[in-house]
């Protein structure tokens, strides 16, 4: 392991309730938890459905072709966590999935100058390999993929 490539930012913590999401992310895929009773998506994942309280939940794999729209975003000019001092300003968005707008997924917007980000902007999910065995879902403008 070389110190030069050491990842300084927080690595997503896998837990009892969320690990299928992060396991899928490591494979560059999106998996979402779903309620087996009311059929609503549950994100972030949890021990039961926050809409109806049902403990019966399942996971759905949505694959790697994920599009979304900026619902809200902030631009931070100060690092609040280790590692972010290297990429200021940091843009953080919550984006509404095109296939299920009620699901909002938070990530940075990469590959786009902060001043060009706006609410309603179309995004595609991309994955950044942050350690040898972990990957982080991120958003990038869908136009840059064209």
């Amino acid at each position, binding site marked *: 392991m070389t110190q030069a490539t050491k990842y300084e*930012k*927080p*690595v*997503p*913590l*896998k*837990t009892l309730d*969320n690990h299928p999401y*992060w396991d899928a992310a490591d494979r560059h895929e999106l998996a979402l938890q779903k309620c087996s009773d009311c059929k609503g998506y549950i*994100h*972030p994942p*949890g021990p039961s459905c*926050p809409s109806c309280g049902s403990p019966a939940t399942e996971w759905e794999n949505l694959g790697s072709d994920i599009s979304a729209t900026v*619902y*809200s*975003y*902030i*631009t*931070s*000019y*100060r*690092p*609040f*966590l*280790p*590692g*972010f001092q290297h990429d200021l300003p*940091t843009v*953080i968005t*919550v984006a509404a999935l095109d296939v299920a707008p*009620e*699901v*909002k*997924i*938070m*990530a*940075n917007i990469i590959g786009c100058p902060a001043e060009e980000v706006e*609410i309603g902007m179309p995004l595609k999910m991309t994955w950044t390999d942050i350690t040898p065995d972990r990957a*982080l879902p991120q958003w990038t403008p869908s136009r840059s993929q064209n």
Partner: protein
Amino acid sequence: MTTYANQCAIVGVGESERSRNSGTTPLHLALDAARNALRDAGLEARDLDGIMNYSTGGDSCTSHELATYLGSRPKYVKDISGGGSSTELLIADAVALIEAGELETVLIYRAMNGASGHQVGRGYDPDLLQGMLPGGSFVMPYGSASPSQWFGMFAMRHMHETGTTKEHLGHVCVSFYEHAQRNPKAFLHGKPLDMETYLATPDISTPFNIHDCCVELDEANALIVTSAGNAKNCKSRPVYIMGMAPRHTHSHAHYWTQVDEVASDHAAPALYQSAGVKPEDIDVAAIYDCFSWVVLRQLEAYGFAKRGEAGDFVKDGNLKMGGRLPSNTAGGMLSEGYTHGMNNVLELVRQLRHDYKGTDRQVKDCELGICTGWSGPDLAGAMILRN
């Protein structure tokens, strides 16, 4: 169900010194605040049979410790993990216990070395937060660790939907800073703010610059609740609790799915029903102000402005002295200091007692006051007080 109906009153308020570096412990600060509240009420430590406090991440002393060194020997001590709506929630607990006949007189406090110790706005330990916060693993890896970022995300969407501008946020700050210039104990006394300076100040994290964020300090606050019967024998003028409403909504405070509803929207109708009054009856307010935008959203929630019109309501000077709803008249957490909401309650009590009568700090002839607590979009607690 607890019936408030003026059966209990706040009879004492007090605070410690307020600074960036207390050089002492939260216990010392809490003792100073508690002794000042007892002195204000004309009560002795032994008169307290309940002591309660709220804290975050162990940043306070316990009620047990405070009771010990105050020389009080209460029946009941209670410490909760809480935030911006906990003052109101603990007062509700105190009223219920007093009404049930379990307790007579309860002291509630918040003590923290908010500047020299643990400081909320500077972020937390990332691994601790991921485990501690619901949904933390979905927030921390992206650099979002400060309440300014969590609430900013809400604010940006709400501003987009309603046309609320940065200048509207600035009017909240300018109004409260103006109040602070009449309060020699405000941390930003002597540091007035005008719109030009506000707009020229760079953002820390959009849409907030330093003026939009509360001033984190080392400080303790305390207040004393007792029955209306006991209140008549206290030294101070009683301020009665007319109504109260707590509410939980969103499943996640830091990771939300929509901004259309906040807990305050649900607390408001219950609050007015509980007190039997309407928004137009209110003379003076203490509105939770960890960030400027939070004030605007609560003005909408509690019926003082229609959705999207709160910015203009504030721009028109309505939160200033002589306005429709003078608010946070000691300067609020934006310019007096941040004690997790309690300092705004203390000021509301002093206004309703007419402590500032004869000065330009007094809201003339005020009788009814509202106090709104906001732990976040997910948790609210509010109360209505009268003299």
